[in-house]
């Protein structure tokens, strides 16, 4: 038990990096995902095709590979970026591609009668989206969204590969140094606590939106 307390500080530090990446990715990828979803549904053909390509590339290759592409790729062309910056870029691109598909499914599940009702009442397209469609979309995508968010917290472990001192790396360092398995168990507990919090949050969100059907 004493040992656990001893490795706790570096692991907490690692979790902070993990959480920073997590929140930064969410803060950028959520709005970007909505914009990309709208772009994907655009009647403007080139935009639509570009978005299909974007989704194909970012869903079709491993996130780890994308991470290497951004980090080492930028380095090769002469831009040395901080590993954390590279990780953020790769994560935002990757997750916005997934989230865009979640949002698109949500938007397309809204009955076309809602658009027609807004239309005959004279609402503009922007008002229709922001007041009628997106609020209803949001309720519907809560379950798939919670999936993506839980995936994200676990995927942050991938940045281990470009030498960022996040939670998993902190555990690995301690495990190698002290020749023990305990840090991995502690790391597992950390991830489980974080996913539990996320789950609780989404449960709360679902309840909050339960006021209508």
């Amino acid at each position, binding site marked *: 038990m004493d040992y656990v307390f001893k490795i706790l500080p570096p692991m907490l530090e690692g979790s902070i990096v993990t959480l920073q990446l997590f929140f930064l990715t969410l803060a950028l990828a959520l709005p970007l995902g909505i914009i990309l979803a709208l772009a994907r549904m655009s009647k403007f053909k080139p935009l639509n095709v570009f978005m299909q390509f974007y989704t194909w590339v970012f869903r079709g290759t491993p996130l780890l590979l994308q991470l290497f592409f951004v980090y080492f790729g930028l380095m090769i062309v002469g831009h040395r970026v901080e590993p954390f910056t590279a990780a953020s870029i790769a994560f935002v691109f990757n997750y916005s591609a997934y989230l865009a598909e979640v949002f698109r499914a949500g938007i397309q599940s809204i009955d076309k009668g809602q658009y027609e009702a807004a239309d*005959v*009442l004279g609402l503009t397209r922007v008002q229709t989206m922001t007041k009628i469609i997106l609020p*209803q979309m949001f309720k519907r995508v809560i379950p798939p969204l919670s999936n993506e968010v839980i995936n994200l917290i676990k995927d942050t472990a991938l940045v281990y590969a470009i030498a960022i001192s996040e939670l998993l790396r902190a555990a690995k360092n301690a495990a190698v140094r002290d020749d023990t398995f305990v840090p991995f168990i502690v790391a597992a507990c950390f991830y489980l606590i974080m996913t539990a919090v996320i789950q609780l949050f989404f449960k709360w969100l679902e309840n909050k939106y339960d006021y209508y059907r």
Partner: protein
Amino acid sequence: MYMLQATDIYKNFGLLQVLKGVSLQVNKGEVIAIIGPSGSGKSTFLRCLNRLESVNQGKIEIEGEIMVENGENCKAVYNNEKVIAEMRRKMGMVFQNFNLFPHKSVLENIMMAPVLVQKSEEEQSEKTALALLEKVGLSDKANNYPFELSGGQQQRVAIARALAMNPEIMCFDEPTSALDPELTGEVLQVMKDLAMEHMTMIVVTHEIGFAREVANRVIFMDDGLIVEQGAAQEVLLSPRHERTKAFLSKVLMAR
């Protein structure tokens, strides 16, 4: 001047011709019932009148202003968006499936367009909304959500929502077709009240009884054309056309 005038409207969905030259003039205060078998084009025609569908050919005028007319090579050309938006503001629309906004309360549903589109003061819109709710007999439901209401109540809210924009013409697209039979009465009653107040109404309906009682004019459509039209009594009680007779005997038999 006619309140609304549609001339020679053609509409097709791909290869399917839905409207094959439909013309209609509507006077102020007139209540018009459009009846006909499903697939006859009556709903499509109504939807063309308020620009939910685009016509391929023909002319639509509202209070003398042109919404759409034939340009060169007889293709329909629409007026600019602003003018059309202004025209559509004169038309209220009630749908078969109500299309209330499920995430908004009854009151918010009714207030939304006045506040967002007409930029009315919130307080004033709320007063108007409550008055309209009283009119449709749902004062006690202001703070409920649509899913908590019966179909008939939802449709009455939808009517109140359309009325909140102060339309000059009310269009109804089979307003009672999605309702349980015992709930149609309350909706038809609200529509009757509107007719009594001389609201101009165009009603696509299967309710022959309502058409007979309330409509000034009944229009029978079949296969994308107006087959017969005239005073309600005339068309419904002594139809001239074989197809009208056949249709009426079928729907009246079903009762």
